[in-house]
């Protein structure tokens, strides 16, 4: 089971390349979403590896706040026009 966790962390490091070299903002937000879901899977697997039920709550709370992050970024990262302040 430890090898699976190691592999998922390696894939997250591979996906971080797109965050470093994305040409535009939506590329980076999509890559951030993918890295977040991968770390959620890592949290669930670690909770079964250590055999403690408390860590599943951490995974659930993190999943909810990841969704809130993506929504807020997509609402407020608009380019403001000239003479118009956003919101």
């Amino acid at each position, binding site marked *: 089971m*430890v090898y699976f*966790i*190691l592999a998922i*962390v*390696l894939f*997250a*490091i591979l996906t*971080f390349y797109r*965050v*470093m070299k994305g040409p535009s*903002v939506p590329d*980076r*937000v999509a890559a*951030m979403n993918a*890295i*977040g879901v991968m*770390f959620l899977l*890592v*949290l669930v697997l*670690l*909770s079964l590896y*250590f055999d*403690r039920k*408390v*860590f599943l*709550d*951490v995974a659930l*709370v*993190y999943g909810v*706040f*990841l969704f*809130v*992050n993506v929504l*807020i*970024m997509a609402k*407020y*990262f*608009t380019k*403001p026009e000239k003479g118009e*302040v*956003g*919101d």
Partner: protein
Amino acid sequence: MMDIIFNMLMIFLVITAFFMVFTKDISTAVIALPIYGAILVVIFVILQAPGPAIAEAVIAAGLTTVFFVITINKTEY
């Protein structure tokens, strides 16, 4: 075996932190902030501390990013 995962996460944390400091665009640095929080959550879980992990998931990965994004939108970037 868990030590290798721990060291890899530490290296990833350092890479993320340096990328956040040395990038040119502000919005890129803010997008890299939840990844930093996620790595800290996994590190706290490996160190057997569920309380700081929940606090980190709520505060650093959740609310701080929201406040930074709204603040950047209010000003000119």
